[in-house]
């Protein structure tokens, strides 16, 4: 039955080559923890992606309750945390996932660095990876404000002051992020929400796609 459906689609869309590109390849021995336990360091990238998927899913569920305005933001998070069934788990996964994704990404970066895997021909993939690192930091920074509690407000104040200290364009960055040159309030919250939920994830998806296409194209780096 499944084979027949596959054949029906394949006959029309020729999906076999796509399938081969994605899944039909050999995994070399030196990255396989089943053969060498120390090869678990090659799992960090995959685990980073795994948490990223969890972040996307839990974030989608959070937006079903979260209200991005200064009056209701904190109340909606409080309600989600204390009243909604499993709300505490969903928010907890998003909260801890945000930290774990940074940890795993950091370990993945160190693995690639210390195995010298960024060298020719993988320079571009390394740079895309550093871009993903930056986007993830941005997601962490913008997500921190959204519960609109005390630490969110005051940490964002400091963060925006730091952004404002960039020479020449600092003031523009500040107004772009905060929505105003002096006030950190309703505009800031909606902007951070938009950046956190739409802008940065869009950039992230593009960079992840580039990252994975390049891996499939070049294969994983050989043993040291």
């Amino acid at each position, binding site marked *: 039955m499944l084979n027949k459906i596959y054949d029906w689609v394949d*006959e029309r869309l*020729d999906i*076999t080559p796509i399938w*081969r590109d994605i*899944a*039909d*390849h*050999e*995994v*070399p*021995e*030196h990255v*396989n*923890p*089943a*053969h060498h336990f120390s090869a678990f360091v090659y*799992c960090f990238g*995959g685990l980073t992606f*795994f*948490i990223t998927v969890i972040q996307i899913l839990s974030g989608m569920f959070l937006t079903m309750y979260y209200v991005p305005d200064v009056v209701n933001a904190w*109340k909606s998070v409080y309600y989600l945390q204390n009243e909604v069934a499993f709300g*505490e788990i969903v*928010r*907890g*996964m*998003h909260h*801890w*996932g*945000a*930290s774990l994704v940074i940890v795993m990404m950091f370990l993945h*970066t160190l693995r690639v*660095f*210390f195995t*010298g895997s*960024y*060298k*020719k021909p993988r*320079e571009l993939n*390394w*740079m895309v990876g*550093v871009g993903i*690192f930056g986007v993830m*930091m941005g997601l*962490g*920074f913008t997500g921190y404000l959204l*519960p609109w*509690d*005390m*630490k*969110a*407000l*005051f*940490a964002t104040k*400091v963060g925006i002051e730091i952004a404002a*200290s960039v*020479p020449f364009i600092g003031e523009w960055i500040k107004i772009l992020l905060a929505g105003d040159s002096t006030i*950190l309030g309703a505009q800031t919250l909606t902007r951070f929400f938009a950046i956190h939920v739409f802008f940065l994830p869009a950039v992230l998806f593009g960079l992840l796609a580039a990252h994975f296409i390049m891996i499939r194209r070049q*294969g994983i780096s050989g*043993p*040291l």
Partner: protein
Amino acid sequence: MHRGKGMKFVGDSRIKANHRMPNVPKDYSEYPGKTEAFWPNFLLKEWMVGAVFLIAYLILTVAHPSPLEGPADPTRAYVPLPDWYFLFMYQLLKYSYASGPYNVIGAIVIPGLAFGALLLMPFLDKSPERRPSKRPLPTGFMLLTLAAMFYLTWEAVANHDWEAQKAMGAIVEEVDVDIDESLPGFAIWNGDSGDQAKSCIGCHAADLKGGPAAPKLVGNELTAEQVEDIIHNGRGGMPPGQFKGTDEEAKQLAEFIASLKAKK
């Protein structure tokens, strides 16, 4: 079955690619050892690693509920702290050579140089050597950076007053109180019958919600006798003899304040 070869479409407008690269998987025979098919053998093992990771992740989530402080209020005092993975940058800004007039160094120049060097690493380290021991400079710089990040994060955590932050960020319970305006004490509090109570309002605020120097009176747990005693003799930071009215008025005021219990 065509399986990708010579498919015919109705009204086919595609350019014929007769010299297509065959989609044959790359050969890892240049690496010695046992290779394994990604699908489904290796992916199954990856999923098992993922499952173990997920269990640890869920235990963390259940054991430590994510924190939520009181709603953002710019008028409350607070010592700001970023999320833990920004702590090393935050700590850097505390040193005199990277703050104040040199703020740009700590906030932009040092992080910018570090991130720029990371981004351009493939062009800074162009030697064909891959082993860390064969390229001492990149390895050394990376280890130095890691040590600095670890030290700065450690310093930031050790120097932060976590207890104070907890107190400053605490969720303040809103209490629901009925104010009985027919009590004679209400008129005294309001100052309708003279100005005896004005010194109360000065610290405890006209809406009875207190201020920086005095606790809120709404939702207190005291009896009228205890309140009367405090009116005369003070308590904590409140000095004795603040109330300038008669003893009868003090009694009525105490009854009014003791009536401000939170609704059950």
